[in-house]
Structure formats: C-alpha cells, structure tokens
C-alpha cells in the first residue's frame, strides 16, 4: 500500500483511490449496488471489476435462495468456482430425482461430506430395499406354506366330515335295506308322537311284513330273503312321500309313520303299497313272488296317556289280524279291513 501511495502524485489521485476502495468495500461488505463517482467513471478496470462483483453477488444470491438454473455470467476463476458449485448441485439434484424413482446404484465422488451423506443414504436405501425384497420373498413363501397348510387342513376337515356323515349314516341306517334302523326310527317316532300330542292331531303308524318270509329264506336261501327285503324297502321309498318315515323294525318287519295324515289317506297308501307289491313282476328280486301284510293304527296322543309302545302294539295287533284273515291285506285299528 505504501508503494502505491508513493506513486500517487496528487491529493486527487489519493482521493480517487480512497473512493474506489470505499466503493469496493461497500460492494463486498454491504451488498450495495455500486455507484461510480464521476471522477472514476472513465476507469474501465474499476467498472469491469464492479460488474464482476455484481455478477458474483447475483450468482451467490441465486444459489443461496436455491436457484440453480439461472446462468452464471461471471467469468474467470471465481466465476468458475460458482459454476462448478452450481453444476455439482444440479447434478446432485438430478441424482436425487433418480433415487426418488428407485435408481439406488448412483454414487457421487465430489462435494465432500455432502457426497458422503448422499452415498450413505443410497447405501442404506439399497440395504433397506434388499431387506424388503428378502422379506417379501419370505412372506410369499410363508403365504404359500400357509395356503398349503390351510388347503391340507380343509381337505382333512372335509374327509373328517365325510367320515362323520358315513358314521352317522351307519349309526342311523339299516345296512341291508338303507332305511332307518329301529333305534333312529323310534327316536323320530317319539318326536312325531309329541308333536301330534301338542297339535292335537292324528298319529298314524303301520307295521308290515312279508308273508311267509321264513319259507322264502328256507327254500331259496337267506341271500334271496335279503334281496326281497331290499326290494321292499326300495318300493316303500319310491311310493311314499318324502316326509313319511320308514324303518326296519326287525327281521322282515317294517314300520311306517305317516305324519299329518288322516286315517283314510294312510290306509289308502298302505293298500296301494300292498297292491303294487302283489302286482309286481318281481324281476328286481330274482323273480320270487311274495305278498305283504300290514296293520295300521291311528290314535290321538292328546287323548289319554298314549305311548309309542302303545301305538306299536296296536299296529302290531292289526298286522296280526291281517295274518289271521289270510295275509296279503291291510287291517286298520279301529278295526277295518282293506
């Protein structure tokens, strides 16, 4: 500074230098827009310097406000630094956009700690994504296993249910004829009796058997006897209503129950059954002709203390009367022969 001062020849020179330095100081420290005094207006170097400083201010201001697109006009080393900063930030912003779209392989090797943080972030994201992908695979496998397990259990449950139904069927069905066995029939008949008692309706129950069944068994063999019984049960099932109850009472004896049926209709149904058997060509039972006898009992359960055994006994008695009267007939109690 002393050398420069020594070369300033006049007070005006010194004043001009002071003025120029003051302007530069204001530009740098106060951010003031430079106002060039008339005495220095002709100094091209000072004007160019002030323009560069103004350009630097504009660039730094834009960068500090997050504007990385406005072109930096300043030239030279300082301008280069600003452009490098701008370029690096722009490139990094592009990298962030790519990361946001899922491209996690990018790494950067400039901007010091900023780059280290970016690389650390993408590394963590890569690991997190890798872990999520592993978990996704794991969960997919678990879901698959679970699905297989559920399917296996459902199949087992289905098989069990089927088995249960078979067992229930076996427990409630007569294995030879497929109609209800005696135990289940009596259970259903008790319910029907109670229903009739509550509703004050008629309870119609019939017993029937094959005429001379023992002779069929003795002469043709038990397997033919079994065929006859199966044929008979099939005829009952085909000729009765779906809600009529059919049971095998024992041996060649069957027991029928006609819910919500008048005595007349029950008797007519039995008569039709007997006739259809008698008129059959017996081709489905090995051509063995046979007939059936039946006894029908009807009573109002609410009229007195009537039990199921009473009803069965009465139907059995009617059957007995049919046998006495020559078989192949239906007897109704109160006594009426059909």
């Amino acid at each position: 500074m002393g050398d420069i001062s020594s070369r300033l020849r006049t007070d005006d020179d010194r004043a001009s230098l002071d003025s120029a330095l003051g302007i530069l100081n204001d530009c740098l420290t106060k951010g003031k827009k430079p106002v060039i005094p008339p005495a220095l207006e002709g100094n091209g170097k000072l004007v160019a310097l002030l323009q560069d400083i103004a350009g630097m201010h504009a660039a730094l201001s834009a960068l500090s406000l997050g504007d990385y697109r406005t072109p930096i006009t300043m030239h030279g080393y300082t301008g280069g630094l600003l452009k490098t900063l701008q370029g690096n930030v722009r490139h990094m912003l592009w990298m962030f956009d790519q990361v946001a779209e899922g491209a996690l392989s990018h790494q950067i090797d400039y901007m010091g700690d900023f780059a280290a943080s970016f690389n650390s972030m993408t590394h963590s994201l890569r690991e997190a994504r890798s872990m999520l992908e592993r978990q996704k695979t794991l969960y997919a496998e678990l879901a698959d296993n679970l699905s297989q397990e559920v399917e296996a259990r459902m199949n087992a449950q289905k098989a069990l249910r089927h088995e249960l139904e078979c067992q229930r069927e076996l427990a409630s069905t007569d294995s030879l004829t497929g109609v209800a066995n005696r135990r289940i029939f009596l259970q259903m008949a008790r319910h029907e009796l109670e229903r009739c008692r509550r509703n004050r309706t008629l309870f119609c129950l019939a017993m029937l058997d094959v005429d001379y069944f023992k002779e069929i068994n003795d002469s043709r063999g038990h397997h033919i006897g079994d065929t006859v019984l199966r044929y008979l049960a099939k005829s009952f099932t085909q000729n009765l209503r779906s809600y009529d109850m059919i049971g095998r009472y024992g041996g060649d004896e069957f027991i029928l129950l006609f819910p919500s049926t008048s005595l007349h209709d029950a008797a007519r149904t039995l008569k039709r059954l007997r006739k259809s058997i008698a008129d059959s060509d017996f081709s489905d039972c090995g051509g063995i002709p046979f007939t059936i006898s039946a006894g029908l009992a009807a009573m109002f359960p609410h009229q007195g203390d009537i039990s199921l055994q009473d009803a069965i006994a009465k139907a059995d008695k009617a059957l007995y009367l049919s046998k006495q009267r020559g078989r192949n007939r239906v007897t109704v109690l109160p006594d009426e022969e059909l």
Partner: protein
Amino acid sequence: MSERRYSFCWDLARDIGARKNLGLLVHVEEYRLVHFCLRDVLEQHYGTEQADALFRETGELAGRHFYERFLSEATDFNSFVAEAQRVLRKLGISIFRVEEANLELGKLVLTVTEDLECSGLSVTGEVSCAYNEGFLAGLLSSYVKRKFHVQKVDCWCAEATTCRFTAQIFEV
C-alpha cells in the same frame, strides 16, 4: 467413394500386446498433439467451420462405437449414465455428469470435466469442443435410437475445466 481403407474397427484401438515396454497409456499431451495437428491440417484444407464439422462427425462416430463396445448392455437410462460415467473415468477420458434429463422431450444438460479436448485450455468461450459435442451426440443417439444435436453452451475453469452441453433430439 470407391473401396475404403480406413473404416474403423476396434482391432485398431484395442490392446494387441505390442507395447510391451510402454504399455497402454499415453500422455494427454501426445493425444492433443495428434488431435490438434489434425485439426490444424483440416482447417488449412477446409476452413475452420468445415474442420469443426469433421471433428463433430468424428466424435459422433467414436461415440457410437464407444456405446456399442461399452454401454450397449444398459437396460435403462440410469444404468446407461452410471456405466458411461464409470468407463469414461476409468479410461481417463473425462468426468461425465448429467444436470438435467428429460428423455420424453429429448432434452438434456450435461457437463464434462477434465476432458481430453479442452481441459486446461483458455476458457474464453471460443475454444471449440466439436469432437466432444459429436461424441456425446453419438452416445445419446445410440442409446435413444434417435438423432441428437449436442452443443457446448458454457465453459469454465475452477480446479479443473468443465464444459456444459445441451443435447436435443432433432428430426432429420
């Protein structure tokens, strides 16, 4: 043109094991000797504009060959950029970065730092980067399968020289 003698193929450029003592590397100075002497001669014969055009075309041809050899496996733009950055740096050609990229509009802003063609030279803004312009156009055109026009729009020097280019798809 009648039968050609100088069609480029990689056999001319690859390591053929002949430089047992000197190896594969050469000084940038030597590269520039060839590069700028060629430009000198071309300018003398055809003028500045035509010399630049020939260098641009040369760069584009180099960019296409470079893409086929090093970058053709890229499955998306990110992998293309990442691999280009890696190979260009590994081979000591330049530091390549993307500032903006909109492939739908076909507009990109790219920077190349420490490149072979102009790094360290005067940054008056008048220095030609015709070869680099062509090279980048060749790379992008090969990847996008459409013609690109690349132009240097800025050049500065801080710790190293950096050139900024814009790239734009154009229809022939």
